[in-house]
């Protein structure tokens, strides 16, 4: 385009001054924009340095290695008040990632089911799904988070009146406690057996598919694969004499001690994020399914496929191409929305960073860390989803 213009102006040299030439004018405007941006950036940078100096504040990231001095309740890695600020940030980051990962999995399943339910031929299911979508989509997320949190705190009993569930599981307003598995000697072999089993299942599924393509007869896949995944680890497990014990939750003086615990903060944030985002995903799924030409369904019915199979084998694979791109932005939203955790005291990246900001006074540095980390998480998610999208895209033969 630009070259065409350049060629055009070259052919008619004397007709006008340079600033009437669209090509040169374009370059001039871009240069002006760039200069203004750079000047603004330099000005802000200088201003910041000067203001920091005037406020008698120092800057730099050296503080990250100093002792944190505060405790964090929910931590996936070893952490104590003696650890560094950097370690504290890691704890916050992992908490953010874990709630986002759990939320994304749940919200996808939930959204898919509700999206399909909105198109159901059953009047009640269809209306219930509509009520769900319209309800959750039109309530602010923070309100849903508070709803779950206050709901959890107020509906569940105190520690002393805990609900005791089977298998030593305990539920009260401090969290959900369950036995923590303690792996003994030989556990590594079980893991290897499990991985081998999964690999075997994948290969078997591929072979079965090739067989089906070739002969038109589909070998039994589902039950064979279940056996392939479960049997090897179980055999190894018993061969090593069942090297697995459980650390059971026990009632202490104040709290339940031992076992594993999921706190009410994580629970309410996870539920709120999943339920809220699922309402959007349901609409995306519905749009995707409706977007597949009706003839596809009718053709499948004409071939004698049942409605369930039609959906699973014919409609959904085509709908996915429409669904994936908007789905990516919902995943990103969910991850970013997890920063609302600060309202209910879940120790996510923003909450921990806020504490550090307050104890050290390093506002600019902490905000810079937040930005950098959220941008990285979002870009990584986008990259993965783009790859997945390309994989699912229509391959023309």
């Amino acid at each position: 385009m630009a070259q065409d213009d350049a060629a055009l102006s070259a052919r008619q040299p004397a007709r006008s001054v340079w600033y009437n030439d669209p090509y040169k004018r374009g370059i001039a405007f871009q240069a002006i924009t760039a200069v203004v941006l750079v000047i603004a950036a330099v000005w802000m940078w200088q201003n910041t340095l000067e203001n920091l100096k005037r406020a008698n504040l120092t800057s730099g990231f050296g503080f990250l290695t100093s002792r944190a001095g505060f405790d964090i309740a929910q931590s996936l890695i070893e952490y104590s008040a003696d650890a560094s600020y950097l370690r504290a940030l890691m704890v916050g980051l992992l908490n953010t990632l874990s709630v986002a990962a759990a939320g994304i999995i749940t919200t996808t399943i939930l959204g898919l089911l509700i999206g399909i339910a909105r198109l159901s031929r059953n009047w009640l299911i269809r209306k219930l799904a509509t009520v769900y979508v319209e309800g959750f989509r039109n309530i602010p997320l923070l309100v849903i988070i508070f709803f779950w949190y206050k709901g959890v705190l107020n509906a569940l009993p105190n520690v002393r009146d805990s609900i005791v569930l089977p298998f030593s599981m305990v539920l009260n307003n401090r969290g959900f406690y369950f036995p923590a598995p303690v792996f003994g000697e030989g556990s590594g072999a079980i893991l290897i057996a499990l991985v081998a089993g999964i690999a075997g299942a994948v290969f078997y599924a591929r072979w079965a598919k090739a067989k089906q393509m070739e002969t038109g007869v589909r070998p039994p896949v589902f039950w064979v694969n279940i056996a392939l995944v479960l049997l090897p680890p179980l055999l190894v497990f018993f061969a090593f004499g069942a090297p697995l014990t459980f650390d059971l939750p026990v009632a202490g003086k104040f709290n339940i001690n031992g076992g594993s615990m999921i706190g009410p903060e994580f629970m309410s944030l996870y539920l709120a994020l999943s339920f809220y985002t699922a309402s959007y995903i349901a609409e995306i799924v519905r749009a995707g399914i409706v977007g597949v030409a009706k003839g596809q369904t009718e053709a499948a019915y004409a071939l004698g496929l049942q409605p369930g199979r039609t959906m699973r084998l014919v409609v959904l694979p085509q709908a996915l191409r429409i669904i994936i791109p908007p789905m990516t932005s919902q995943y990103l939203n969910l991850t970013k929305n997890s920063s609302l955790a600060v309202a209910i005291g879940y120790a996510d990246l923003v909450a921990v960073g806020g504490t550090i900001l307050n104890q050290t006074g390093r506002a600019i540095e902490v905000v810079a860390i937040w930005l950098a980390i959220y941008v990285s998480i979002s870009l990584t998610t986008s990259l993965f989803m783009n790859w997945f999208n390309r994989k699912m895209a229509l391959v023309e033969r």
Partner: protein
Amino acid sequence: MKKTLLTAAIAAAAFGFGVSAASADTLENVKKKGFVQCGVNGAGLLGFASQDTAGNWSGLDIDLCKAVAASVFGDATKVKYTPLSAKDRFPALQSGEIDLLARNTTWTISRDTQLGFNFRAVNYYDGQGFMAKKSLGVKSALELSGAAVCVQTGTTTELNLADYFKANKMDYKPVVFEKQEEVDAAYDAGRCDVYTTDQSGLYAIRLTLKQPDEHVILPEIISKEPLGPAVRQGDDKWFDIVSYAHYAMVTAEEFGITQANVDEMLTSENPDIKRFLGEEKDSTIGPDLGVDNKWAYNIIKAVGNYGESFERNVGEGSQLKISRGLNNLWSKGGLQYAPPIR
């Protein structure tokens, strides 16, 4: 380059535009605006800063803000309050959003140096304590091993808590919130066994719980918490005005000058009192401080002396009924001591 831009953008948000407007001379700035912008406790801490149903503020910290306004303008109503959470208070002062921070804030060396503030006057000597449900049967903080403890983030309380439990080889589960209202609600709902904050705060918060009688404040005080007003470092004139607003209230109590008798005291023959109230001929104490010569008179007329303010807000005249203790005058066994006004 990309990184620089990024940092600059943040910087712009936090500092680039904010501070440039606030001049280094806070007094000039305050006079130009016509009011003092005072950062106070946003959650409403009874006795320190809380609002009645009509929206009027009262409390020890509020009295200090009023005293500064009375000192500068001769009019205690020329104050505007910015309610702040523990987490937001320091950036608010650093960025120049407020002129002084009177938000039951503990004076520590790192806040004095690293955060770029100045502390001097202490308007309440406090210490960190614990509150627990009576039904737990706990008699001492040393029996708290394994307890879930509710605490507000970004406070010295949070750090003292970690240190105290570590020093006594006990463990605990911190339940941390950003806002005091959230901590209150979580404790009341039984999310944690113990509530920890400054002891004066525990007395105030206990009154707001559903059943105040069912909670006991444990005897241990685990830290020193000198609470006082903070200003930005590097503005000594404003620092002096704020510090001496408090010292004037203490001095008035030493002299026995009260809100009620301050007008009579103007005719006192005592040279110390005459000088203090600006009645000494050719005295330049007020102008040297940067305010009117009647500054101390204006303060006492507006909020009374320190003892009056204490009794009205946290002492016998209030719901809290806290005894003077460390906050009595030095001459009566406490720590409140003002430099001579001469």
